[in-house]
């Protein structure tokens, strides 16, 4: 029935939604399902005047993977913070295996078998995999020393029973991000967690890594653990979840069974408004415009860096967005770092405006007119410093002259804060107070104080909600119209598809395919990555 609804026009879909919601608001009507292992009943949480959760009901069944989706600020994190003992609800109750509970600290929640896996991993990269699995509960020999042998054997058995294939003696930091994440999950399970919350676990994983994660999740589920899976990647949510709960503006919209669930439908429930425009770039594919004939601004020939990428050749033209898509580890970030002078290439050449260049330092690349927004927020933002200082840093001398004066800086920053849509738009606020998406906008604003010739954007919209993404993409379009040559790098096909004029797919350090002037879809892009 739901599948049918998704195919009819938007209007009737909206009506359909209301019906479904009513129908789905009481999932247990009629049949006697299994007792939920965890239940929220009418949970409300306020912060000062703002309501973060408004009468939310949520049920987690034993042996279930439950997807939790919603735009940024919809209340997902608050809900999970109540579960993990960070916050205490103002109203409503939380039942753990039928018994009302109230956690006053994360340690209490942990003791009751609730495990959290956050986006930022909390493992120790300098220790071995075995030590990480046993973190805080190392087995001891009778002499009171750490029992290394037992630690290795048991952690090895534990990992392989979860289908995780890593060497327990290797340093955790030597594993890929996906591998580290699996070890963290193993650790949480090992410490006795039976309710496991995964917050955006796939956002930095490549396709195969995500598959490994899903396999481990399925294994946990088969063992009777219950998992909450929070993600912006709706395909991932649909792929693994038994049921999905959608939050919007602090309220629960619906809990839907997996059967017949589509991404389109989830998006519609999440944003609750016209999803057509989005759906086009997400699902149907786009037709790229005929290639530009403008003289290239940046030309790269046979660029390579041993161990990272090789034989990369392309041209970026003014007034054009060149999209580069690939999985994590495909070498896109490394190419960008070379273009920006942060890394030295081992082969190949670069030309800027027809002249050969080889920036040895970022400061040199900046002077040449190359700007780079890193994908790593820790490498772009100064959280303890004011927004205006973050923004003026890159071109301080050019924009304020010899003597740095605060009013002038603030005025320049205020304009850019407006232009990039940073909220709240207060240049004197410390940047660390902003949400992740807004910090990213500040980092982008930094490169707009002086118009760059080439602007390289690596994941400029990662972690942003739908509205913020649109704002940033519109800004990028405006820069294109002003004649900037833009290189847009992303591991999200949607981002690359949305506005690119030409698209490269990178795979294993090489350009696998170039798309220009033709129809290209998400599937097609992903098939070359």
């Amino acid at each position, binding site marked *: 029935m739901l599948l049918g609804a998704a195919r009819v026009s938007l209007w009737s879909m909206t009506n359909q939604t209301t019906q479904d919601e009513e129908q789905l608001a009481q999932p247990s009507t009629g049949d006697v399902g299994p007792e939920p292992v965890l239940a929220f009943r009418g949970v409300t949480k306020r912060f000062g005047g703002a309501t973060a959760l408004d009468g939310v009901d949520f049920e987690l069944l034993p042996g279930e993977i439950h997807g939790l989706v919603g735009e940024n600020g919809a209340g997902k994190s608050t809900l999970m913070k109540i579960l993990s003992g960070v916050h205490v609800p103002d109203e409503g109750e939380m039942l753990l295996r039928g018994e009302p509970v109230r956690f006053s600290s994360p340690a209490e929640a942990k003791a009751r078998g609730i495990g959290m896996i956050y986006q930022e991993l909390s493992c120790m990269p300098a220790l071995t995999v075995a030590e990480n699995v046993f973190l805080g509960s190392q087995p001891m020999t009778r002499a009171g020393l750490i029992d290394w042998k037992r630690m290795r054997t048991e952690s090895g058995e534990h990992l392989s029973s979860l289908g995780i294939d890593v060497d327990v003696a290797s340093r955790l930091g030597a594993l890929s991000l996906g591998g580290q994440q699996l070890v963290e999950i193993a650790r949480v399970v090992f410490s006795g967690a039976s309710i496991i919350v995964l917050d955006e676990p796939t956002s930095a994983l490549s396709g195969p890594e995500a598959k490994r994660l899903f396999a481990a999740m399925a294994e946990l589920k088969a063992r009777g653990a219950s998992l909450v899976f929070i993600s912006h990647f709706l395909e991932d949510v649909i792929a693994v979840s038994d049921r999905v709960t959608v939050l919007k503006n602090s309220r629960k919209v619906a809990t839907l069974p997996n059967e017949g669930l589509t991404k389109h439908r989830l998006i519609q429930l999440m944003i609750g408004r016209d999803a057509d425009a989005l759906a086009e770039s997400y699902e149907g594919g786009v037709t790229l415009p005929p290639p530009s004939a403008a003289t290239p601004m940046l030309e790269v020939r046979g660029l390579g860096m041993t161990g990272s990428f090789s034989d990369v050749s392309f041209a970026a033209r003014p007034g054009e967005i060149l999209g580069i898509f690939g999985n994590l580890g495909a070498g896109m970030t490394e190419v960008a770092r070379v273009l920006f002078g942060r890394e030295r290439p081992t082969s190949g050449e670069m030309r800027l405006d027809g002249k050969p260049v080889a920036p040895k330092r970022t400061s040199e690349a900046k002077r040449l007119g190359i700007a780079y927004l890193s994908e790593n927020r820790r490498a772009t933002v100064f959280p303890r410093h004011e927004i205006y*200082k973050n923004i003026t840093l890159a071109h301080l001398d050019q924009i304020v002259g010899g003597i*740095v004066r605060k009013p002038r800086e603030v005025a320049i920053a205020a304009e850019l804060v407006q232009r990039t849509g940073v909220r709240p738009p207060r240049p004197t606020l410390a940047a660390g107070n902003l949400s992740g998406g807004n910090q990213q906008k500040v980092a982008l604003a930094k490169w707009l104080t002086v118009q760059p010739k080439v602007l390289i954007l690596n994941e400029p919209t990662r972690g942003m909600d739908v509205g913020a993404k649109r704002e940033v993409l519109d800004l990028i379009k405006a820069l294109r119209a002003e004649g900037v040559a833009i290189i847009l790098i992303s591991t999200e096909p949607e981002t690359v598809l949305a506005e690119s004029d030409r698209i490269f797919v990178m795979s294993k350090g090489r350009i696998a395919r170039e798309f220009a002037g033709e129809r290209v879809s998400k599937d097609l892009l992903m098939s070359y990555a």
Partner: protein
Amino acid sequence: MAQRQTAVAWASRNARLLAPLLTLICMIIFFSIVTPVFRTTQNLQNVITQIAPIAVAATGITFVLLCAEIDLSIASVATFTGVVAAWFWVGDTVALGAWGIPVALLVAAGIGLLNGYLVAYVGIPSFMMTLAMLTIARGMSIFVSEGKPIFEVPPILKSLGSVSSQFLGIPVIGLFALGVVILGDFVLSYTKFGRYVYMTGANREAAEMSGVNTRQVVMMSLVISAITAGLTGLLFIGRLSSANPSAGDDILIQTIAAVVLGGTSLFGGEGGMRNTILGLLIYGVLSNGLNLLPNIPITFKLALQGIVLLAALLLNVFALRIERVQTRAE
């Protein structure tokens, strides 16, 4: 009510400056009441003369700490610079007269450049590099002076360093130090380089990814620190009228203590010259005031000084916690 809230918010935001300021005011009031000698003009001139050389070195070390680096060689570099200037003045081997002063400063700058290059471009941690340089510079002082104090120093340094040379009642050495401190504040607060120093210390990778040449910034900070250390050495030989190759070791601890007391972070990016000025005054008032206290055994004074410093540091830590909470709440 709203006004009061704003005042509280303002105070917590500026806790990094207000905490040391409060400490300073309390100390001044305390010593003024307990020892009448404290507020005499002559004693205040003493305080200024005592902290002036430290203030100069503290200016340079502020740059280094803001960069999240350290310079342990400042005391040895100060001594070495003094010895070199005196050695050229005596001129048994090479006689340069008063020209020995700028040459000695160039030597100091050269040491700073070596420190800076090896730290920023070669990658030796500044702690280890400047520890090695501490030993090298101390050894060179002993080598050049043949291990003996040099009792002849350029008269211009003597008149600069003496308490009796005053301008409008203020010791000239104090005015000199004030000039250096103000220049330091100007560079840190109002120039591109100063901003680069802060941002390099706050997040080196982000500074680098903003096109800041962070290696150059670190190197230049160590050069500045060596030059100000050299100036401190010159002020010292002026004040003491001799260059002693085995003196001056306590400059290092005094300088770093003063800067950190003022609230500049040892981890970079936060603090500044205004903090350093407060830290210097606290340090100066404390060591001077404790010496004037009656009824305290002289043998206990050093320990007492340490205890008071510890209390001031605790106050800073507490104040910074408030500041952080306030920033987050906004």
